[in-house]
């Protein structure tokens, strides 16, 4: 874990690199300078950041205006307030107007653990999937995060990036080359395929490695690109498995669980899907990350248990 890095730090470094590369990038925050760890950027480029105060609607509206004026506008604040407080500004000013705004949903999922449900964003992917135009990504590691942000800054149009709130270890090796739309197979296996996104990909990988020791053959697919999505690739990755599990720090409705379900149902796959995450109508518990994940069975131990049960059932 020595190579762990907080995704917000990666983000800020990408911003700095972009401006140094001549990109007219303007970060817009809503009193969220510490949340976004933006200080190194401000120190290097004083007067570039826009802070609109505690006002998420105008944060997104302003970003859209900056983008219409030719800037690459990026908003950085806590995902729950971005999603909900500025929901219509995202819908209209960013997506419908198709403005060149990059929305960063910081401390997404249950990153804010003990701060409870006003601070959890367990529906952001679902909400974004209901909007037009916007591309949707959820990086699982610092290396992937950097490449996704570099792609997003150069791509002309709205992008949402779901950012975890903790330092994450590197998952990908040096040769890794992110391509928008491509789900990446991190572990091969035939009995169960685990699809995951964001920081819980690490839980999935740990679970697969544990299960391998027990003689179970479990694949892990990192679906960091929700839109665009190479559906055929994902279908190939799923086919042949008896069981598919989706794992997300998100509601099981509308996010990755639904993406996978939709694909499987459209293909008429006989594999059975188990969606792990916040259950229908529920909430993530207030508590530290490991506790919250444990309650949702999206920690590695929970995933291991679910896999074992599934394989066991199949054998019986």
């Amino acid at each position, binding site marked *: 874990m020595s190579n762990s890095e907080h995704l917000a730090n990666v983000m800020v470094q990408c911003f700095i690199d972009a401006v140094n590369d001549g990109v007219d990038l*303007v970060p817009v925050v809503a009193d969220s300078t510490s949340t976004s760890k933006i200080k190194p950027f401000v120190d290097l480029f004083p*007067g570039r950041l*826009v802070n*609109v*105060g505690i*006002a998420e*609607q*105008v944060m*997104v*509206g*302003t*970003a*859209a*205006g*900056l*983008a*219409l*004026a*030719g*800037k690459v*506008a990026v908003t950085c604040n806590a995902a729950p307030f971005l999603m909900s407080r500025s929901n*219509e*500004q995202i819908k*209209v*000013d960013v997506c*419908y*107007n*198709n403005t060149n705004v990059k929305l960063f949903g910081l401390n997404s999922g249950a990153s804010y653990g003990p701060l409870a449900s006003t601070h959890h964003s367990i529906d952001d992917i679902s909400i974004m999937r209901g909007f037009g135009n916007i591309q949707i990504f959820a990086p699982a590691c610092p290396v992937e995060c950097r490449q996704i942000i570099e792609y997003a800054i150069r791509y002309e149009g709205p992008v949402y990036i779901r950012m975890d709130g903790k330092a994450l270890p590197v998952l990908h090796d040096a040769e890794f080359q992110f391509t928008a739309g491509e789900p990446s197979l991190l572990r091969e296996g035939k009995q169960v395929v685990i699809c995951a996104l964001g920081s819980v990909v690490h839980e999935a990988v740990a679970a697969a490695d544990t299960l391998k020791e027990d003689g179970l053959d479990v694949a892990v697919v990192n679906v960091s690109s929700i839109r665009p999505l190479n559906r055929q690739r994902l279908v190939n990755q799923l086919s042949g498995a008896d069981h598919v599990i989706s794992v997300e720090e998100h509601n099981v409705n509308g996010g990755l669980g639904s993406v996978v379900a939709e694909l499987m149902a459209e293909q008429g796959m006989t594999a059975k899907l188990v969606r792990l995450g916040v259950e229908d109508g529920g909430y993530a518990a207030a508590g530290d990350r490991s506790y919250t994940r444990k309650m949702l069975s999206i920690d590695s131990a929970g995933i291991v248990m679910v896999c074992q049960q599934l394989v066991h059932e199949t054998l019986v």
Partner: protein
Amino acid sequence: MAVLSAGKLGPIFFVLIEYLFFIEIKFKSVEILKSYVIGDDMNPFQLDVNGLEKKARAIRRKIIRLNADSPAGGHTGADLSQVEIVTSLYFRLLNCAPDRISDDDRDIYIQSKGHAAGGYYCCLAEAGYFPEDWLPSYQHNDSHLPGHPVRQKTPGVELNTGALGHGLPVAVGLALAAKRDGRSRKVYVLTGDGELAEGSNWEAALAASHYQLDNLIVINDKNKLQLAGPTEAIMKTDPLDQKWQAFGFSVTQCDGNDVASIVSTLEGLKVEGKPNVVIANTTKGAGVSFIAGRPEWHHRVPKGEEIDLALKELADV
């Protein structure tokens, strides 16, 4: 004098004009506003009061026909309310032209009260932003002119609106960018008065003032009616002037159905570190006797003999 100095013209003549209006003499039918020398970076029409009034009447006639032709109703009252405002902007004040709709220095007009798209379209058509013969397609299937403005569909439209309270926040971003890039561009936003109950406006007002956006001009089409009835009764937004002042704006009032009053007010705005708001006192449905001031015309279109009656009232003399 904001608009003027942006246009790089000598201000002396306009100080005089300003003075004339200041003492509130309305030479409505007299040609008191001389045309500018027309340059590349200014409004291509530069109409005087007479010209603007004539255009306003022409636009009103278009509004009547457009709404009468609409297969899906229309916001006739809201369209008519704003006619003098948009006419003054598009035919005199805005540094923008049909052949410069992507010019980085053009002035920007944002129709925040997006439901008056019909009135906006009629003005844009009159100014040549798109062919007149698009107008009868208003709200038809797959039209270039949907029920609310869509910039991907209509040349000249700067922002997709329709949900109220979105114009000002976006305008803040546009004005801020212009400031930072040292552009002379001004950004105009037209809101309704009922619309000002949306908190997003006040968030944006704070930001506009904090960032000293004196290139931002908010115009309130204060027609004292909203959807369900009088703004005073539904949700009082008055005293507007005090609200804007407390939010750091420079406040001016004008008669929003009088082009002379609008032009002199807008040309007389100060650029001194504060965003501007112009409270334009209007009549909803202005220009047609049986529509003016009637809340039921918020979402109603002229039918049958109403069409001819209205057109007759709006005929050039």
